[in-house]
């Protein structure tokens, strides 16, 4: 898939780092679909998910609650709840199909070659073990390092995620740390085995904006430095814009757009991506009515036939009633919209000119 490796000049660092490997994706997901058993019968949560992640690439997966982004992240490591009725598709990771391989093979990948961090570090960290114990756990499981070396490595890792005096902090318990420090500990634990891919599910949603800026900067730097690919799952388009090189937009269990991040923001191809962007307050004139997307995300039991966004889309026509496929739109972009060639959708607006003018006014 060429699409995975195309980026704009401003966002070339990840791909420069991956060099020739850009042509072979690190992770290649095809036809991924999950169906759950529920009291209302079987419900299809996601379907036909296709995407690639190149080595060292930073990919953002965005969408609103219930669009299937979290379950997509979890299914890559087969960390699925017990009520899964059907699991379709393939997840190729470096020659191995994670969707079908044995549990023991999967275990060798989990935490070592693919690591994951979550939104709420307090519930992901065990309150009765020191952070040092939890950071070095993966090392003890996956390597033959002795306790002393593991501890030293954990201290080094804590330092590299920006924790001051790590020699002391390593013996702290999670409750002794602040929210931002806990998320740093999670990142240290995730990266200690030097994974090729880090899946981060809303890693900064529970944090304050000034701390969020620190953690995002850290993730970006570590990903570039250690050539770890990053799959960042978030509802916040701003977070993706500032951290990732590519943006995958999901809606109602499907991938609806897959583009280099700057292209997607400037000239979105799917009406939903455009609608999301336009609903952000900082892209609208002050005090004016905010554009919003009418209606709501359909429930899993009542998915519309054809394009799933059709009932809420102001551009819907007869052609949208048929099943949609993720089409190649050129320039490393893909979109699930039959009308993408005819539509000219609004994207982000440059407000800097106005702003810098205002800043220049003497106080």
């Amino acid at each position, binding site marked *: 898939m060429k699409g995975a490796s195309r980026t704009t000049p401003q966002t070339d660092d990840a791909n420069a780092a991956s060099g020739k490997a850009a042509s072979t994706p690190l992770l290649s997901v095809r036809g991924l679909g999950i169906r759950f058993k529920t009291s209302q019968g079987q419900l299809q949560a996601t379907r036909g998910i296709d995407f690639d992640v190149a080595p060292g690439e930073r990919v953002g997966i965005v969408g609103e609650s219930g669009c299937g982004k979290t379950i997509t992240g979890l299914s890559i490591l087969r960390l699925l709840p017990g009520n899964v009725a059907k699991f379709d598709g393939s997840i190729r990771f470096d020659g191995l199909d994670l969707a079908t391989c044995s549990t023991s093979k999967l275990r060798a990948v989990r935490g070592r070659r693919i690591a994951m961090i979550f939104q709420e570090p307090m519930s992901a960290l065990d309150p009765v073990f020191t952070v040092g114990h939890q950071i070095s756990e993966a090392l003890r499981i996956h390597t033959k390092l002795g306790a002393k070396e593991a501890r030293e490595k954990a201290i080094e890792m804590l330092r590299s995620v920006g924790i001051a005096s790590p020699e002391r902090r390593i013996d702290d318990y999670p409750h002794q740390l602040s929210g931002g420090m806990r998320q740093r500990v999670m990142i240290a634990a995730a990266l200690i085995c030097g994974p090729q891919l880090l899946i981060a599910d809303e890693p900064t949603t529970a944090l*304050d904006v*000034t701390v969020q800026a620190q953690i995002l900067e850290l993730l970006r730097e570590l990903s570039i430095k250690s050539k770890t690919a990053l799959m960042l799952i978030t509802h916040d388009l701003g977070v993706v814009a500032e951290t990732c090189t590519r943006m995958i937009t999901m809606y109602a269990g499907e991938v609806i757009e897959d583009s280099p991040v700057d292209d997607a923001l400037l000239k979105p191809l799917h009406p939903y991506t455009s609608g999301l962007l336009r609903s952000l*307050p900082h*892209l609208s004139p002050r*005090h004016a009515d*905010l554009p919003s997307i009418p209606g*709501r995300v359909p429930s899993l039991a009542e998915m519309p036939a054809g394009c799933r966004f059709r009932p809420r889309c102001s551009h819907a026509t007869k052609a949208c009633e048929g099943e949609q496929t993720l089409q190649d739109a050129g320039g490393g972009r893909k979109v699930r919209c039959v009308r993408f060639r005819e539509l000219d959708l609004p994207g982000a607006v*440059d407000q800097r000119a106005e*702003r810098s003018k205002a800043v220049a006014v003497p106080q």
Partner: protein
Amino acid sequence: MTDAAPARQIDTSDTIVSVRDLEVRFQTQDRRGMLRAIDGVSFDVRRGETFGIIGESGSGKTTVGRALVLLQKPTAGSIQHNGLNPQELPARDFRKHRRDYQIIFQDPNAALNPRMTILSSVLEPLDLAGEGNAEQRRQRALQALDRVGLSAEIGARYPHQLSGGQKQRVLIARALTLQPKLIVCDEVVAALDMSIRGDVLNLFARLQRELGLTYVFITHDLSIVSHISNRVAVMYLGRFTELGPTDAVTERPLHPYTQALLSAEPMAVPSGMREDRRIILEGEIPSPLDPPSGCRFRTRCRYAQAVCADQSPEWRELAPDHWVACHFADRPNFGAN
């Protein structure tokens, strides 16, 4: 901002709420510590405006909101509503008085009783107030629902049958039933998906135009507060650091903390449209149990000097209507490097 809806004229001398030297302290459970949630805050809210309060978790913004609607007793300082001190009113008048000052909270699920229909939830404040007969009250509740765009049919449902956006509308309707003068909105759209936020924010704006409401909008989200507020106060560790007209605060921030907040906000724009300069603050907000001496922000401020630890900065009006608490904010080109 030519195509913005014209900000309605606000009479700057017509004050609806006046807060002076407000302090709220909480004793810790072991009775040894004292948490300073609000540590000396003064401001006026003008009739018909939207007054935004922005701050990170632990800044005390929610406590300010609760104190404004008399849900939280101040430890010191005063709050005046329309020029009178509600705490001095006799109990009966006090109860009647506080109907004019309503609050809406963040989580619509926690604020609605799952075993009551929507209509009975909206009726409850009217029943407690006991005005008119049952049928008149029912009509008023239905009118309130209609005002927020919900049909009478919704009134017969239970909270779990509604979407998050609909539930938030119900809470707005409930706050409107007693025809308040002021509504404190505490993170009212934080729990909603972004495509729905716009709808709810538009509804708030429309109701303000139609009913002449005053809002105090409390949020951690700078883009929301700057979109809908006339004035913004920035709060840090129990104190205001800056207060001014929204455009001035977001475009010519005077306080280093405001500057850092603005630059930390992730913007959904391509890299070519982004400001290059990014201030990343070190560390996190200190504990309100043991706040730093002098300027509360100094432990994270890149301009901090000895004087910042020794003296609390004065609350100064450096530009018309634009207040700041920083020793150095009046220096030329401060924070512009």
